């Protein structure tokens, strides 16, 4: 409170300005696309981090909320012409219900750690298979989002740079929200549950309630990311919005950057997506899969040598001292 102008705040403001003006310098659509993907996965990883990193409830089925958001807004737009700007909140509402449902069933019956992880995979797979078999939702061939009417109202832009600014604002939003929550009682309680659940109970924390708070928040925010994805790519199918591959891609930036740290997921996304995109663009065309091998090797190195992620490494070098 007292020192609002710490170098951390200054650094944060400085980075905001840099990224605000970056598209004026970098105009290549490839680089803009890469930046959008960095922020998109950084955003999703931050949503995941809120529940997995702070509250300690790691999920491997987060795609279920991406898919719920993407499918709800796309379907409502297709069928009744509802603007995705509104549809995204209806999707978020469905994700909230879904998150509470999954959370209540799993937490009520005390599924923890690996068992909770498996349960979340199962829920995501169930929804994926359901949608694969619902013809109104496009089944396996998905939904194409085509422009009709006013582009802005339809959450569609002719230039990629506008999508960049939308996801950029979403990233700033989740960072501020996470930072804000950590200053509040709820933030302390989520971390206490992660650190020691039994002791949290004995210290007056209604563990089930706060776990449900964590999964609801994470579900709602993740869902908004799903609508963004649908509107940016203009095509969704069960594989790309509900598959386990996506769930894995969501957690990798957080793991690489540092689980349970504010900037970890974003830093992780920068490194991971950059490496993935660079390896793909220079090596992707050649011998099958070499770019994936390089990507995989990188992940192994991070996991073996940097247990606390890149942020952990940075704070060891005392660049980022203090509470993360």
């Amino acid at each position: 409170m007292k020192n609002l102008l710490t170098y951390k705040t200054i650094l944060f403001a400085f980075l905001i300005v840099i990224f605000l003006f970056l598209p004026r310098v970098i105009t290549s659509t490839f680089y803009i696309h890469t930046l959008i993907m960095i922020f998109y996965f950084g955003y999703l990883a931050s949503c995941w981090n809120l529940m997995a990193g702070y509250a300690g409830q790691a999920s491997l089925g987060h795609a279920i909320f991406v898919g719920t958001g993407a499918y709800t807004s796309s379907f409502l737009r297709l069928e009744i012409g509802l603007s995705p700007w509104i549809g995204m909140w209806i999707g978020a509402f469905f994700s909230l219900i879904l998150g509470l449902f999954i959370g209540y069933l799993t937490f009520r019956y005390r599924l923890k750690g690996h068992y909770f992880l498996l349960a979340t995979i199962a829920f995501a797979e169930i929804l994926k298979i359901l949608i694969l078999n619902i013809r109104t939702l496009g089944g396996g061939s998905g939904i194409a989002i085509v422009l009709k009417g006013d582009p802005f109202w339809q959450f569609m832009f002719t230039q990629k740079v506008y999508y960049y600014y939308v996801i950029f604002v979403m990233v700033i939003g989740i960072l501020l929200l996470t930072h804000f929550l950590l200053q509040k009682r709820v933030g302390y309680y989520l971390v206490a549950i992660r650190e020691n659940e039994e002791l949290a109970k004995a210290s007056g924390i209604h563990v089930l309630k706060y776990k449900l708070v964590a999964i609801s928040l994470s579900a709602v925010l993740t869902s908004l990311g799903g609508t963004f994805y649908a509107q940016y790519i203009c095509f969704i199918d069960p594989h790309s919005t509900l598959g386990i591959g996506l769930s894995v891609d969501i957690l990798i930036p957080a793991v690489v950057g540092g689980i349970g740290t504010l900037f970890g997921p974003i830093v992780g996304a920068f490194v991971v997506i950059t490496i993935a995109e660079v390896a793909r663009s220079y090596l992707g065309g050649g011998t099958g899969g070499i770019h994936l091998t390089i990507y995989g090797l990188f992940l192994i190195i991070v996991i073996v040598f940097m247990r606390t992620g890149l942020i952990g490494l940075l704070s060891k070098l005392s660049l980022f001292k203090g509470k993360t």
Partner: protein
Amino acid sequence: MEQEIALEVTNISKSFGGLKALRNISFKVLQEETVGIIGPNGAGKTTLFNVISGFIKPDQGEVIFNGRKLVGMRPDQICKIGLVRTFQLVQSFPRLTALENVMIGALSRHHNPLLARQESEQWLDFIGISRKKWYQVAKNLTLVDKKRLELARALAANPKLILADEAMSGLTPTEIIEVIGTIQKIKERGLALVLIEHVMKVIMELSDRIVMLNFGEKFIEGTPSDIVKDRTVAKAYLGEDVPFV
């Protein structure tokens, strides 16, 4: 003069499969009283604490705390009405600082972390954790400091009664004397205490009354001097001729 009853345990029984961990346990704790619970390993002491603090449900019996029935309440609810426990194996929030650990306790009464923080600082001073350790993460503290931290966190929840499960286990004789002093200070604040303890010196010095459990049953109850005189207590501990009451 008749003192008011803080905690009343009536006919508590609990079985785990075929094992009867507790059989018809009844006892009372008066306001501001310290009751020591002793008994050999496996006598049911910790199970009794788990029942009182809401971590396990008894098969039968009643627990009344300041006029409220505790059976069926969740541990966090029991904490909030003023009955707080500590754990046999010392527990902490390992990657939070000492100060944050105590704040978690204080937050059960304060919505505002800043208020909780101010109060927690007072409790850390009271319990005798030196200021240079406030910002160390709990897992790096020594055992005695972790034990103190548990008491500080319990106190920060502003309880009327603390159930302390082996607050002395693993401490050196010097540390034990220090922690006895700390518990004396807690007693002076007018709290009721229930202590599970193996170190006889501690139990004799601190308890107003002692309840001894053996094989899940209340074996004997009395003042410390009654217990010392009773030869059957020694027998129960040494394992010969244990009579079933």
